[in-house]
């Protein structure tokens, strides 16, 4: 497969369940070797997209290609090249964790036994315990270990860390980075911005079944504002009126000037020049977080419910 052919290519994808329009013209493209963040609030259509990509459900309309082939017709053959962790991990309560790993491994194209054992240790799993005695987080870990140990070219992870504690989330992120080093492509769906921010090379944001925006984090950040906090000896001249500067607040404190403002990326250099002229004492520059990006992408059209959700997640 040439590097230019996308691993996942989706154009104008539509899916309706009876009267519910789950996907309404979605576009998505995932390049080989990248970690692609697939971001959107609950009910926006992430899991539906993934199920169509896996050929578990059939698209109502639109074009879907996985490794350049039609996933509905060639589902099982294509699945030999990928590993999937479902949003709601359900396993067999009567089997042990190790037995479940074997059962799941049988459905994969191949399993790297050494990596599997290594992952079991890193995720602190007890493979002799029965699934019904595991916590939700531990069940999630079984599914993650199975997927990460598979000999796959593509990992499709649907909200993979929803049950993990922060320590395990760190372990998970490290494992995903290692898989990417091995050349594996990753599609990572999430409604948690921090998780995607830590891992993704590129991000697509989906809302109500449509992609709102897509691009690298740097590209997306270009449209958002950087926050600057500086303490200078003298008063910076003409800062409030300088091009690209907004929300400017300057206060005198302890004989120094405390300046806070936001600025768009292209005017940063000029603004720092003005601060420099006023002799910088301390300087903090904060790039826009994905949270801000998310809010930006949603613009003013956020309805109350989504605002609540998004902000709740943003403060996690």
């Amino acid at each position: 497969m040439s590097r230019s052919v996308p691993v996942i290519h989706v154009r104008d994808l539509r899916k309706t369940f009876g009267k519910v329009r789950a996907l309404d013209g979605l576009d998505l493209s995932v390049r080989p070797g990248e970690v692609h963040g697939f971001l959107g609030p609950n009910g926006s259509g992430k899991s539906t997209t993934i199920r169509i990509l896996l050929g578990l459900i059939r698209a109502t309309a639109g074009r879907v290609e996985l490794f350049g082939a039609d996933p509905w017709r060639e589902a099982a053959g294509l699945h030999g090249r990928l590993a999937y962790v479902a949003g709601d991990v359900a396993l067999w309560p009567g089997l042990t964790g190790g037995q479940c790993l074997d059962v799941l491994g049988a459905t994969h194209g191949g399993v790297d036994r050494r990596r599997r054992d290594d992952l079991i240790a890193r995720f602190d799993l007890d493979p002799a315990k029965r699934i019904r005695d595991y916590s939700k987080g531990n069940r999630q870990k079984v599914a993650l270990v199975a997927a990460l140990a598979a000999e796959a070219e593509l990992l499709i992870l649907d909200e993979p860390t929803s049950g993990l504690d922060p320590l395990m989330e760190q372990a998970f992120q490290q494992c995903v980075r290692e898989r990417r080093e091995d050349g594996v492509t990753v599609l990572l769906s999430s409604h948690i911005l921090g998780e995607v921010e830590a891992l993704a090379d590129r991000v697509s944001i989906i809302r109500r079944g449509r992609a709102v925006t897509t691009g690298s984090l740097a590209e997306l950040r270009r449209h958002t504002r950087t926050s600057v906090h500086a303490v200078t000896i003298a008063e910076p001249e003409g800062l409030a009126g300088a091009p690209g500067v907004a929300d400017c607040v300057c206060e005198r404190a302890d004989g120094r000037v405390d300046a806070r403002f936001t600025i768009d990326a292209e005017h940063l250099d000029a603004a720092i020049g003005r601060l420099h002229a006023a002799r910088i004492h301390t300087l903090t520059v904060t790039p826009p977080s994905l949270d801000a990006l998310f809010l930006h992408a949603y613009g003013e059209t956020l309805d109350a419910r989504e605002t609540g959700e998004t902000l709740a997640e943003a403060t996690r």
Partner: protein
Amino acid sequence: MSAGAGTADPRRPRLNTMAGIVWRTQRRTILVWVAALAAGMIGTAAAVAGLYDTPAEIHTYAEAVTSGSALAAINGAVEGIDSLGGVIQDEFGFLASFLLPLLGITLIAGSTRREEESGRLETILGGRIARHQPALAALTVATAAILATAVLFAAGLVLEGVPVSGAILYSAALGALAFVFAGFAALLAQLVLHARGVYTWSLIGLAAAYVLRGIGDTTGTGLVWLSPLGWAEKTAPFGDQRWWVLALPAVAGLVMGGAAVWLAARRDLGSALLRGGAGPAGATRVRRGPIGFAAWIHGPATAGWLSGGILLTAMMGALARPFLDAMAGNPALGRAMGVAAGRPLDGFVAATQLYLAVIAAGYVIQAIGALRTEEADGRLATRLAGTLSRNRWLAAHGAVIAAGLLLIVVGSSLVLALTTAWSVGNTDETGAIMAAGLAYLPAELVLAGLALALFGRWPRAFALTWAAYAAATFIALLGPGLDLARWVLDLAPTTHVGSPPVGTAQAGSLTALSLVAAVLIMAGFTAFHRRDTS
């Protein structure tokens, strides 16, 4: 580039991978069913062979049974009944009509829709398993289990002295019966949303097949040929031996199973033809209370078992008159059914009430099993997280289940009383029928107590309750006919009821049964109060 298209690709989806997964995840259920069924059938055969060991005895049995249509309605019309195989087929007729179809239904429902409903199938299909393969693998494994059961049974029959060809044909007919219902359940699993729906609709289909076969056998019409139970009967393994009839269940099972596989490849995962629409956004006041909530949970099962009870009692009541006529012409029939001379109708009612007790006990065990499911699925923890205490939760469910039991017993007995009165033309038997129904309540509560005690103390061993139920049913229905030892008969709670109205229900025995039930129920409550919930 099209991945996985080449036939030599090791990543090509393989059916045996999926069959291996089905076996691995279901093998306990499969082994228990196959072993229990084979043991039960071979045990029956052995007991019959021991009891009817001379041609003269077999002949007397055959004479007795063939003279009444009521027995044909229950056990089926057995061709060639004047032989050891024929007697076995007749004795096993009623239980086999339910157990073999249930084997097929259980194996399929457990490995198809239940897996899909739980979300496990999504993970499996995310691997290199094609969409149609889970259904196909489930059918393959179920067929293998059915074959194993049939082979074991045939071997057992031959060992007991049944002619080889008859033994093989009879076992094959029973296996084919299970196969039809496996195909039926596989098809239903593609159409309904929940595993519970697969059971419900399969059992409705089974009830319809049973009624069709019963009406066909008593009226001697072709209706028998519309029922899979009729096909098994028409193979006539100990009569004319119509091997070709085996083609009917084989084709029906293959067509339905094939349709299931075809549909599975073409439909969305998680979809169903029949699915509930949106519901009310809030719960009504009644449903929010513990009793109302419990009633909502047990409602469908209560309705199902009540339908079964009404179906049985209505059919039997309607046959009361033909039965009396047959008795008048043949006193041997009375002896075969253990009915005292001079009071044939009492004996008829007693037999029917025993079947009803089996239904009622099945209901309580299933209802208490639903509590275990609530717990295992984590819904109990949600319920108890609020102000509701454990004991109130259990008491609310207990009260609702007890009310359901009473409804099933009284409702079905009433139907039996009405249909019997209609059939024989007087209401002389009404009081006796109602009293007999109520007399079985303590015995049913003993099984309920056992279920509750296991739920309270060893919830993971709840399946043992079903094993006890199966054993008690086997002893209650077949024990007296097979002349089992007294102590074996005494193991079944229903034995101690005394078979009213043909016998008398002893107040002492009923009190003892009630005490045992009370102790078990209290033990269940106490243990549940103390243990961890999961």
